[in-house]
């Protein structure tokens, strides 16, 4: 059927080279594949979330994909007002009959890049830089730590969070500053889960001749040779599928959890990081992937008990 899809990005905007950009890529790909036009909107302040969604809904757009957990309460309100409109929310669960919730097992993907980080590190010291200090990001951190320890139990891990508010997603200068401090303390691989802030982290890694690890989108190309890999969170796929399902009338409300097994998370290999990934690393990651998908290795999810065993 004909659909009029729409995307509402979170703060940071569609070109954050990370989370929101993943959603943008998915929507663009769909447009390229199917020729379907879509509308999108970048949030500047909180009161706009509701307004944007309502505005789209009023114009008969559907499905409306809301990117990010911050959209939940606004989406809940608008979804109730427009029961005929299909809503999809990424990274958060909203329990309504016309809402589809997509969440990811970020800890699994982070585990894999953790292995790579540990193996690529020469100093045995690696870093993690989170965006906003929230359980979701601690979930990334916890999976990463588990992966690092899995590959090198003696590794030392530095962790920093950028801040406590939404601004922490969009502060590359501070991200760079934190990365520098971790490099200064001896780290030589740093993984970020910080949205737009991560651009500064990867930049600092490139400037210092160290390695960064990207997140959400494939960020390998940002600084070829300096980005070890990227933890892919297939927001693009989620958006694409939401559009496609709606067009095919197979769109269903409810929760879908996308992990390694479902192809929802992954790590990025391409010509930009070809030389950085050794065969040993490939093998180790392949093994871990196998174990996780088969269920023989369980990566702890921070959000299940607000604690990290490491």
């Amino acid at each position: 059927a004909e659909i009029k899809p729409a995307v509402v990005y979170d703060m940071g905007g569609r070109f954050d080279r990370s989370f929101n950009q993943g959603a943008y890529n998915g929507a663009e790909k769909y447009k390229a594949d199917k020729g379907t036009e879509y509308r999108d909107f970048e949030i500047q302040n909180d009161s706009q979330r509701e307004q944007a969604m309502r505005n789209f809904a009023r114009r008969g757009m559907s499905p409306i994909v809301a990117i990010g957990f911050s959209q939940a309460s606004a989406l809940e309100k608008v979804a109730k007002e427009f029961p005929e409109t299909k809503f999809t929310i990424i990274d958060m669960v909203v329990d309504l009959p016309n809402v589809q919730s997509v969440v990811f097992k970020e800890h699994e993907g982070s585990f894999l890049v953790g292995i790579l980080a540990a193996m690529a590190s020469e100093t045995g010291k690696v870093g993690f830089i989170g965006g906003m200090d929230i359980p979701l990001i601690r979930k990334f951190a916890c999976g990463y730590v588990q992966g690092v320890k899995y590959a090198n139990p003696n590794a030392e891990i530095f962790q920093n969070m950028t801040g406590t508010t939404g601004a922490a997603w969009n502060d590359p200068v501070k991200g760079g500053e934190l990365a520098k401090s971790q490099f200064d303390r001896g780290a030589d691989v740093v993984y970020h889960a910080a949205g737009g802030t991560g651009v500064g982290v990867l930049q600092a890694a490139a400037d210092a001749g160290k390695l960064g690890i990207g997140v959400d989108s494939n960020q390998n190309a940002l600084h070829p040779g300096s980005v070890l890999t990227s933890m892919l969170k297939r927001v693009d796929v989620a958006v694409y599928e939401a559009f496609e399902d709606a067009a095919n009338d197979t769109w269903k409300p409810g929760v879908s959890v996308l992990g390694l097994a479902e192809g929802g998370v992954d790590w990025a290999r391409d010509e930009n990081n070809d030389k950085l990934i050794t065969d040993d690393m490939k093998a180790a990651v392949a093994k871990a992937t196998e174990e996780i998908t088969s269920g023989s290795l369980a990566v702890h999810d921070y959000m299940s008990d607000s604690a990290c065993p490491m």
Partner: protein
Amino acid sequence: MDNFELVILLLDATLRTSTPLILAALAGMFSERSGTINLALEGMMLGGAFSAATVAYYAGNPWIGLLAAIATTVSLSLLHGFACITHKGNQVVSGMAINILMSGLTALVGIALFAQGGKTPSLDHGSRFQPITLPGADAVADVPILGSLYSELLSGHNILVYIAFLAVPAAWWVMYRTRFGLRLRAVGENPGAVDTAGIGVIAMRYRAVMCSGVLVGMSGAYLSTAQGASFLQDMTAGKGYIALAAMVFGKWRPFPALFACLLFGFLDAAATRMQGVVLPGIGEVPVQLVQALPYVLTVILLAGFIGRAIPPKSLGRPYVKER
């Protein structure tokens, strides 16, 4: 990693974070010492950062970006001057207007040029100011204490950091040892005295705000082409106001203002590293407390609890000869 090394690293970061504050605080000083309140530092810094990033991106050269930043901020200070010096408008209102205007305009133009949500494209290596290794830094790196002081702390910053620190004695010299400085200080204290001494008050004040523009332009360029690698919407995040606070804290004098900037920069560097960190014995220190400290200190100073800050006498008053 011993504690000494940690302190060095923190101080190293302090130099980086206080650089834009120093340049902007000196900028504020030139303007305010001549009697014009410069609340517009924040907006000018933003304008400078945007122009620097944009022009450096197209030109592939940070120096051209820097010139563009200065051109922008000087024009903004001329606008400020036009409103408050020529038309005797309210200086606070003009400053606020410029801040708000630039917050919108940089984003708007950024979106129009690059369609990246108000960001400018990331600058590559050659379009940014790169760290400079001071002579012999590598050689002495292993000498205990002094070696790491030199190679870690002093060496390895970009040119704007060194310019900022050299700007302080230079500003002092200009202020207190030159004709220009004497007249500038006089016009902020008693413009009538300057006028009757046969010096144009208006021209003098314009020159002062232009100096202010040059300095704050460098500060903006530092943010987007030296410390960072692109412009982001509202990337100054209150640094203009912090610089103003530092200037007040430094009682409108270059060296005390430098120390205030270093203090505020240090607090910033410390706060950045403290997010989510549990200190042994103390627990998690709220970073917000550390972040608020510069403002709290400035208020305490203004309240006269730690020495009195006496502003230039005619600060905020347009020069009116004929009622």
